[in-house]
């Protein structure tokens, strides 16, 4: 009797505990790696998904077909569309491996970022995908443009962003948390990198594009999009983007070319850069000080300079410092005068460091930002220069 009871309990529990309700096998799901949001013609939005074609990713099974499938559908909410895609797509979509979210320019201009709510509260999506604004082209086309060495377009964009932000500081890695925090914060406005397709869009969305030595179309990053709340205001150039990253203490490596004569430059590789921001109110004026300290290595020099001498190092350091200070100040002034919003998060710094003063102005911080007195102070420590003591240029006979 007792043994019988135990046995029947085991059978019952085995049925209950296996969690069948939420089981999806791998062959039942389509993994979505990219999502593109465009403005719909009839409905509010057009959502396009990029689903990977798994056999094409394996070297043995690949037949040279497209490794991704892109399909777009119009509707009013992303949450509904993500389950409605099966009007054309064969499998249940799984968004947990999303890499890139591309947003059409018109969507961003009109402040239609309210669909982000779905991505924030969904259990499937995480905070590990990147955001891009598609400029001049539709988000769907940008997401479909193929590239020779990467099978999946959105993975190409993802690793491009990752490498770019580490190598030169081309674009900030903007994640959902950053955007949402910036949107709701009183002392910061969001930014999102902007990309476009250079070349022919029709040939870009073809697998044949991957067979060209010089791709017929390629996704290139061009700007940094500046947002006021959820509306796209305008664009900053790539140089400004690097300066923006510098203020955020997010710049890991970069190369700076400084003029040292007529059409002559010297280039240093900067690393270990550290940015400290001090913000307070002095006599009713917002006062912000940026202190940037970095180490650098001399990579290339066109001018005559005897780099065996330490005082030459000092002179070069001074030149770099002046150059960076000037460029940074120009970028900040441009944002202050042209866009009149605080994308740098100086308000957040003020909130942390001078809370009582910030509390009074937090509803009009962007106005305060435009009249803020911002000083940039750069300290460069030039450490070494390649593996030669002197450049061969200093020994050139014809000079």
């Amino acid at each position, binding site marked *: 009797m007792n043994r019988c009871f135990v046995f029947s309990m085991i059978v019952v529990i085995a049925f*209950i505990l296996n*969690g069948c309700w*939420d089981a999806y096998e791998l062959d039942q799901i389509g993994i979505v790696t990219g999502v593109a949001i465009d403005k719909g013609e009839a409905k509010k939005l057009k959502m396009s998904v990029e689903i990977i074609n798994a056999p094409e990713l394996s070297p043995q099974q690949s037949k040279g077909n497209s490794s991704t499938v892109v399909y777009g559908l119009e509707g009013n909410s992303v949450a509904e569309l993500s389950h409605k895609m099966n009007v054309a797509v064969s499998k249940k979509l799984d968004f947990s491996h999303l890499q890139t979210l591309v947003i059409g320019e018109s969507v961003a201009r009109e402040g239609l970022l309210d669909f982000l709510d779905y991505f924030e509260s969904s259990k499937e999506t*995480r*905070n*590990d995908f990147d955001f891009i604004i598609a400029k001049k082209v539709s988000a769907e086309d940008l997401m479909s443009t193929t590239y020779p060495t990467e099978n999946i377009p959105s993975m190409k964009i993802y690793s491009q962003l990752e490498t770019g932000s580490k190598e030169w500081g081309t674009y900030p890695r903007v994640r959902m948390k950053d955007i*949402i925090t910036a949107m709701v914060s009183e002392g910061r406005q969001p930014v999102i990198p902007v990309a476009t397709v250079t070349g022919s869009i029709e040939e870009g969305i073809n697998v044949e594009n991957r067979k060209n030595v010089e791709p017929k179309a390629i996704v290139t990053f061009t700007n940094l999009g500046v947002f006021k709340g959820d509306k796209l205001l305008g664009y900053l150039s790539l140089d400004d983007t690097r300066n923006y990253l510098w203020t955020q203490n997010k710049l890991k490596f970069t190369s700076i070319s400084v003029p040292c004569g007529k059409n002559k430059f010297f280039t240093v590789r900067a690393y270990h850069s550290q940015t400290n921001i001090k913000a307070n109110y002095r006599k009713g004026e917002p006062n912000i000080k940026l202190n940037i300290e970095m180490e650098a290595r001399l990579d290339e020099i066109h001018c005559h300079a005897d780099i065996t001498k330490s005082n030459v190092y000092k002179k070069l350091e001074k030149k770099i410092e002046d150059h960076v200070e000037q460029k940074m100040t120009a970028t900040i002034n441009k944002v202050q005068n042209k866009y009149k919003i605080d994308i740098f998060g100086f308000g957040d710094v003020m*909130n942390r*460091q001078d809370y009582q003063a910030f509390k009074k102005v937090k509803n009009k911080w962007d106005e305060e930002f435009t009249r803020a007195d911002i000083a940039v102070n750069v300290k460069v420590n030039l450490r070494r220069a390649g593996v030669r003591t002197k450049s061969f240029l200093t020994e050139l006979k014809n000079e």
Partner: protein
Amino acid sequence: MKENISLWQFFVLTITFELGSAVVVGIGNDAKQDAWIAILLAALPGFLLIWMYSYLLSLLPGKNLFEIMEVAFGRKFAMGLTIAYSVYFFYLACYVLRDFVEMIGSAVLFNTPSGVVAVTLMLVIAYILYLGFEVVGRVAEIFSPYMFFFIFLLSIFVWISGNFEIKNLQPVLSEGFQPIMNAIFPQLLGFPIGEIPIIFTVLMAHTSNFKYSRKVGMYAFGTGTVILVWAAILQIAVLGVDIKLRSDFPLLSVARMVSFANFFERIDATIVFIMMFGIILKISVFSFIGLKGLEYVFRMPYRPFVFPMSMLIALFSLINSESFAEHIEKGFKILPPYFHMPFQIYIPLLIFFIVIWKKKRHRFRKGGNR
């Protein structure tokens, strides 16, 4: 079947109980980025209550709260109070179970019916309770190292993946102490701080060595509070105040942020484990105390009540609230002022003073006779 737990089991059981669901759901939200200070300060009255209640128990050795009530009020009145207490503890078990069901439903298993989650968990707990309270202690002893390890691992991973931004904690004490006080009274004091002293009034009577149980209990409570403070700091530093306030399960969101070396990611399952383990123990303890109350009222061993009460807890956890919003509303607006405060503080304090008064009078009379 023994009903005594060792001091070490008592220690880890208390810590796990205190962490329970509180480490996963955000607490002290009224204090915004100073939530960790609020938790730290809320522990002070907790220590005081533990001291008082353990003193109360030491006055009448071997008796638990319900038997002490009899000393204070007489059997008839004590029975009424005991039934009220049992209902309160069973309700807390329902509430905690619903927390778990909601987390599973909203973050892990979408399509699984809530009833299945609730009933399966309660079957496990009924089995544990049926085997006796010692088994609860052993469950705590066996699984709590994993929990500590996972919390440690999460902290390290979050730090390495570069999400830990300590500046999110600033500005410290921006609005003074008022928001902190609002967070402590009555919310933090009721959950999770005040739950510890009140369960001690029954659990301490079941430790193998009562003499040291006060000291061990205080250490456990202190350790648990430190981990809670750390969890709050982790949540605020990683998510930022705004996202923390808007998250149902901030620690789960923290785990979702972990991603480094393209390999250590998607570790949310560890958080679900922490929550599930904490909740199993919390429900076990609450149900055990409730059953002890029934044992006192009906003067019979509690085992026949285990299975029916467990199923009732599963049922009531589901019909208690229709939606998650209603559930949270009850937990934050109704429970602390109208239930936590009287049951955790006012009534025990009343008993405390009555017992001391009676003892004094007793001693005085004794002295007079001599």
